[in-house]
């Protein structure tokens, strides 16, 4: 599939973040919305800021992310044909996960692969709530404002993700 190049994609992502701040008068943050839905205390209001997202708004925001990505995949003609969605056509065989050759070579396309995806996602949930931010709130919004917590968090999560990814590749012969 043809993805946007770095310039178009980067400008678009930046404009989404800036547009959100301009219109909602709050920082953009996905893990904050997730945390609010699972029981985190509400965000702080402040002078000149918009009201913190209510739970309904947090749910609507997250649902809209899925809808936007779904529209994008529909327009690209790839909806439902990516990753494990192809299970229906391929059956629950050894190739059911479909996350690509590197993932399959390291973790297989079966039960271990599903466990790695699920276990990794749990770490993402715990980690982003503990750090109080993820790729959007720390990596984009906080780094752009040179916030100390966000700079450290982003350096650490990018650093460990790079180390983990390099380790995944060890012994695979440079696929």
């Amino acid at each position, binding site marked *: 599939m043809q993805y*946007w190049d770095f310039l178009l*994609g*980067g400008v678009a*992502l*930046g*404009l*989404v*973040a*800036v547009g959100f*701040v301009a*219109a909602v*008068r709050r*920082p953009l943050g996905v893990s904050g919305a997730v945390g609010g839905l*699972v*029981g*985190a205390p509400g965000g702080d209001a402040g*002078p*000149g800021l918009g*009201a913190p997202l*209510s739970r*309904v708004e947090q749910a609507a*925001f997250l*649902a*809209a*992310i*899925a*809808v936007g*990505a*779904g*529209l994008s995949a529909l327009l690209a003609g*790839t*909806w*439902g044909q*990516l*990753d494990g969605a*192809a299970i229906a056509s391929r059956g629950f065989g050894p190739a059911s996960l479909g996350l690509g050759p590197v*993932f399959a070579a390291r973790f297989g396309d079966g039960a271990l692969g*599903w466990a790695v*995806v*699920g276990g990794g*996602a749990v*770490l*993402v*949930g715990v*980690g982003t709530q*503990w*750090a*109080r931010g993820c*790729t959007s709130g720390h990596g984009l*919004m906080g780094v*752009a404002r040179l916030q*100390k*917590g966000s700079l*450290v968090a982003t350096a*650490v*999560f990018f650093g*460990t993700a*790079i180390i*983990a990814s390099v380790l*995944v590749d060890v012994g695979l012969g440079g696929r």
Partner: protein
Amino acid sequence: MSASLLLSSSSSSSSSSSSSSSSSSSSSSSRVRPAVVLGGLALGVVLSRLGFTDWGELHRMLTLSDLRLVGAFGVAVVVTVVGLRLLPVGALLPDRPLHKGIIPGALLFGVGWALSGACPGAAIAQLGEGRLTAVVSVVGVAAGSALYQAIARLRSLPSASTLEASAQAPAPPGVACA
């Protein structure tokens, strides 16, 4: 479609509970600002078109074997820096100071991101793209988030001397405890 469902349900509930002030009070208002939904839609489109939802693309970014996504993120930060300088509200956004959870949280997040190919936003976008693995990712992110919040609540419980008082505090609405 699920967004429109939420919108319609919220509008009906806000009309029924119109007594709460919507301008100053925040969490009690259930009105959905259109910009919140539009922002989510646009974020979903961009994450999908960038390939940020693609395990292989993310892996090539994190092994630095393809710098397209690294470059895109850098450009996005620069655009955000400029945009927030131009917006008056940019200077009002709350600080993100160092705290005790930054390093351990980011460590776990980085490992989990590399393994699952899903940051919280990407996991939800993957679900929208019809990726079956995203069902596991979204449930995992939600479960991990709920686990942390539950532990945080337990750890913030008051000490034994005030337990009795706090046990009476969180009475659910509608349950008379007079």
